[in-house]
């Protein structure tokens, strides 16, 4: 049977993707960030996941205000990097795992999660920057990716509790898929950042650290945090962290924290990263 073996959370700051694409990884500003992922790149080489369920949010790339799904699962065979205004990032096409994605969609809908099934969707930096951070610049991504796009742009986003429970529904779905697959789930976005208004540039290291601690040790408690706490403490775009709870919900209650990295700043954001392994 398929099995979720590990969870990864990471910021998906677009400027990190640009720094990599423009060959700036050794510059003083960027080097500490890329260095912070060296462990992770080695780790994932050994882990060799077959499929990654990649939880992220679209940033007005694939979805305008015409249609805003709360949870959209990508069931296509492949997904192209989106043109976000400067041409698509020079990264490989994202290959999906259509059969597992559909299986998760069906299982989740029958478990009363109201998924939107998507068969045609470009994927923006929210999805591709984490891949770049974890895999560098390969010719092809080394595994299949199932995009799970969560609305955190148009209020209200789903509650933390709903995200956590969707993670559990995903775990159940994966474990009922009859193929020997090593599956990882990633949560992306965050950590503290605000991109708008006079409060832009807000960073809250204490909150971020407590969030990482909670993710490891008290996810159920963390899942109860209301939206306003994210925004007040971690900035208006800090709300993205609610997506990390989907990752956490998909893991066992008992996990090992394998690695953690935190750095300020990347452009406007705090970069946070954690690796959790199922016991």
């Amino acid at each position, binding site marked *: 049977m398929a099995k979720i073996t590990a969870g990864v959370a990471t910021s998906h700051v677009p400027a990190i993707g640009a720094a990599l694409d423009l060959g700036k990884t050794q510059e003083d500003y960027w080097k500490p960030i890329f260095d912070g992922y060296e462990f992770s790149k080695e780790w994932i080489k050994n882990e060799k996941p077959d499929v990654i369920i990649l939880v992220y949010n679209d940033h007005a790339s694939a979805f*305008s205000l015409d249609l805003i799904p709360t949870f959209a699962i990508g069931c296509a065979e492949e997904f192209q990097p989106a043109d976000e205004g400067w041409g698509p990032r020079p990264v490989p096409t994202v290959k999906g795992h259509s059969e597992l994605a559909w299986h998760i969609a069906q299982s989740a809908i029958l478990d009363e999660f109201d998924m939107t099934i998507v068969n045609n969707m470009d994927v923006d930096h929210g999805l591709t920057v984490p891949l770049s951070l974890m895999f560098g610049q390969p010719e092809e991504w080394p595994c299949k990716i199932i995009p799970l796009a969560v609305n955190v742009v148009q209020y209200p986003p789903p509650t933390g509790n709903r995200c956590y429970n969707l993670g559990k529904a995903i775990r159940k779905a994966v474990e009922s898929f009859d193929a020997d697959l090593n599956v990882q789930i990633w949560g992306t976005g965050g950590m503290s950042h605000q991109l*708008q*208004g006079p*409060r*832009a*540039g807000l960073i809250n290291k204490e909150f971020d650290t407590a969030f990482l601690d909670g993710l490891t040790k008290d996810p159920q408690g963390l899942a109860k945090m209301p939206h*306003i706490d994210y925004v007040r403490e971690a900035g208006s775009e800090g709300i993205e962290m609610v997506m990390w709870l989907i990752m956490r919900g998909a893991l066992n209650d008992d996990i090992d924290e394998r690695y953690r990295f935190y750095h300020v700043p990347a452009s406007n954001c705090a970069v946070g990263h954690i690796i959790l392994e199922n016991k």
Partner: protein
Amino acid sequence: MSNAKNSAYNDAFKDIPGTVIFDATQSRLGFHLNQFCMTLMKDAARQEFRADEAAYLKKFPMTEEQRQAVLDRDYNRMIALGGNIYFLAKIGATDGLSFQKLASTMTGVSEEEYRAMMVAGGRSPDGNRSKSEQQ
């Protein structure tokens, strides 16, 4: 008068300084402004916009205030009028500006000052959590 606006959920956010939550009220207000921004994802549109911004903006049923805010590149005003930053960022990209530049204009400092603040650890949440705290 918006009822969504009146709900406790939406009201609570209004205590946070310097921040506009993109809720139903803002989304309805800014619909055409934001949908205009989406058109800037195509290069042909960006060229047309640059060639005659006012004429291009006339194609969308925005308010005159919204058009003026775009022409002025007044991002805080655009946000007040219903713009969402991820949509508005496409104007910045059309202008060839970095996101840090946009952020600096919204915070009223130079790009250099903004960058320096970020390198120094960013804006502290202390004093920025609630309007009452600021007084």
